[in-house]
């Protein structure tokens, strides 16, 4: 139920903040999504969508952090190997 998935905004219509909508593409499947809760969303942003509403704009820099941690783990693992 709290399933929410990322999609890319490919078109925005309306400027009333409460009924601003966008076309959001989920890997090619396009749906009309309410943008009331992401007033700063612009074209090409990726948003998390839940029951017809965008609830956040994905932060590209933060999205990298998982992989930054992995890189650190990797070098940690390697140095450990060297130590042994």
């Amino acid at each position, binding site marked *: *139920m*709290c*399933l*929410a*998935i*990322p999609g*890319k905004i490919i078109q925005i219509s309306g400027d009333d903040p*409460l009924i601003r909508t966008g076309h959001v593409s*989920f*890997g090619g499947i396009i749906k009309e999504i*309410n943008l*009331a*809760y*992401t*007033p700063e969303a612009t074209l090409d942003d*990726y948003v*998390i969508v*839940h*029951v*017809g*509403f965008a*609830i*956040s704009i*994905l*932060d*590209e820099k*933060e*999205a990298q*952090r*998982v*992989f930054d*941690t*992995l890189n650190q*783990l*990797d070098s*940690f*693992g390697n140095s450990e190997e060297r130590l042994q």
Partner: protein
Amino acid sequence: MKYVDEYRNSKEAKMFAEAIARTVTRTWTVMEICGGQTHSIAKYSLQDLLPPELSLLHGPGCPVCVTPVELIDKAIHIAAMPNVIFCSFGDMLRVPGSSADLFKVKSKGGDIRIVYSPMDALNIARDNPQKEVVFFAIGFETTAPANAMAIYQTKSENIKNLSFLVSQVIVPPAICSILESPQNRVQGFLAAGHVCTIMGYSEYEPIAKDYKIPIVVTGFEPLDILQGIFMCVKQLEEGRFEVENQYSRSVRKEGNLAAQKIIQEVFQIIPRQWRGIGEIKQSGLGLKPAYSQYDAEVRFPCEFHYQENATECISGLVLQGLKKPNECPAFGKSCTPESPLGATMVSTEGACAAYYRYQTVQS
């Protein structure tokens, strides 16, 4: 798909799993709150990647599962009325009430429509002015802004033939209730990434401090969940009890302020019953008096002398992390997704359905 596929790499998942194995020195029990996370854990067999010292318990974060039987009975009662169009998310149709489910009402000719968004109910109400349209507004904080917007717009557009059967619950009081149980085994939590996308995570900080328990806001993909567990285990091993944010690509500390504003406009905090668990103080959202004319319970009053039927179902214990689905005698025998005895076997996010679907056998 971007922001999905890259978080499902099995080699990287193993790296996290190895890091977790290197970190643990003793047994730990961690609970993921959200049913979406439970579903991913079962689907990708994440427990199998983890060291034996680490057990995962599945939490109550499935709104379909915790909607009280009494409210399902009310929904069935309202949906069977001749002049009503009853709108619901699809998952709710198979949830057993005390003697039937909504699907049965539909098969007997009840006008029940499965909708994708609560806003669809507004269109149905506009298109059918001669009918009473009722939307089953269930959900956690993630769904609250969508339901709140539908209710807000109903009022501002003065749509008279639409009302809402509300069963909104919130997570932090449920965490406290689990922690206060004398049987509690949970030592760390993965908080639900999309709930925190809406509400932020400040309200978890006093919980982490008071109960001395690490809480990691976590996403839903396999790498997210493994990193969340890694962060949680690291805190446990180092004796830290903090709120950390693994899912920072979507969650900001203050949450989504625009969404919170509409939630506060429409809803107020009330006590709520959780199916199988009982009443949890201050754990629900109900309509504010200014919106009570859109409350389906007010519009269609019905007196129920509801009695919980004795069944084999132990879903209340499953939802509190006290039992695993496969410890239920009915699991996979008299209870399957086709004929569920409990709500946790209905929703794809219910722990029983997730175990059944992916045939996870865990100790």
